[in-house]
């Protein structure tokens, strides 16, 4: 199959977050918020190629995205994982490194760093203590709000404000509980909760288009 068409770097967001089941509600909310703000999410899950080195793929994606959302809330230990995972901080480092040391086009990169709790990063990654970090508390609603605030703050002068966090959350719930599962079933893509990254993004875009039409016809 040919590669999917892609938007330019200015509308592409590299998503660096955990993909475990516990984090899935937050991860899916973030993907929704990115699409609803008019951007295209990209992450390591979008392309599986056994012949490609993962770090090469990630670095290429970071290079191809002007925006990055990095969640470092999973740098922790628990009963199942006696040592913390450092993939997310490393990818954040690649993003910051590209911005600081890369070619001129990389200097326009912007990053949203997400944590689960305030100042937790002081203990795990104190080098970024001087930077603004948003907290989501593992709550999808707060994650949507943080992503919306991030893109709204950087919107070009003269453009209208993005929809509010509450409106986005309502639409997210409508897509999550009604439109999305129905579309997934009709398209025979499998259960809504088990969609691949690419299928999920496609159905979120489709869901937003359905909602836009319903709103136009005043059905919602």
């Amino acid at each position, binding site marked *: *199959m*040919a*590669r*999917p*068409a*892609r*938007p330019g770097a200015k*509308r592409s967001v590299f998503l660096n977050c955990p993909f475990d089941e516990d984090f899935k509600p937050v991860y899916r909310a973030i993907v929704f918020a990115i*699409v*609803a*703000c*008019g951007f*295209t999410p990209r992450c390591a899950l979008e392309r599986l190629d056994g012949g490609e080195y993962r770090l090469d793929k990630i670095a290429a994606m970071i290079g191809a995205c002007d925006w990055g959302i990095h969640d470092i809330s999973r740098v922790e230990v628990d009963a199942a994982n006696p040592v913390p995972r450092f993939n997310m901080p490393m990818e954040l480092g690649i993003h910051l490194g590209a911005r600081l040391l890369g070619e001129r086009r990389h200097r326009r990169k912007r990053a949203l760093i997400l944590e689960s709790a305030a100042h937790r990063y002081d203990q795990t990654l104190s080098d970024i203590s001087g930077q603004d970090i948003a907290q989501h508390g593992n709550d999808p609603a707060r994650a949507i709000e943080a992503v919306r605030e991030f893109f709204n703050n950087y919107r070009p002068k003269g453009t*209208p404000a*993005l*929809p509010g966090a509450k*409106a986005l959350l309502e*639409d997210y719930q*409508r897509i999550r509980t*009604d*439109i999305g599962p*129905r*579309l997934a079933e*009709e*398209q025979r893509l499998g259960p809504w909760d088990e969609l691949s990254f690419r299928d999920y993004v*496609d159905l979120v*875009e*489709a869901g*937003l*288009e*359905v*909602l*836009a*039409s*319903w*709103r136009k016809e005043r*059905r*919602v």
Partner: protein
Amino acid sequence: MALASSGIRKPVIGVAVTYCPSGSEPGRRYWAPTKVGLVGSRNGRKTVAKCRFCAYIAGMALKATAKKRRKAPTANGSDSFVYRGVRITRTWTNSKRRKEIDEAIRAMIQRGPAS
């Protein structure tokens, strides 16, 4: 690739199927997942391909490849719509699947929300 040879002058990114010209892998067929198309001034606006085995970078006319790609059952495309004042642009390659999704969207719009 199809776009590269079809008169569109913008630089395009594509995937080429061709033969390694360097001789290190003589005649070996390979997929070159690399930038193909009209590239910038550094390379003098020419079509380039890179061998995945020997990293040979060559400027070459990929006309035969372009003809093959033109017959491929997929096509790039995009459309956009306005959601709460934000323009959402959808892009895709596989037009058949996009057609199915578009039909599903139309059907869903007609049916309306679940009660």
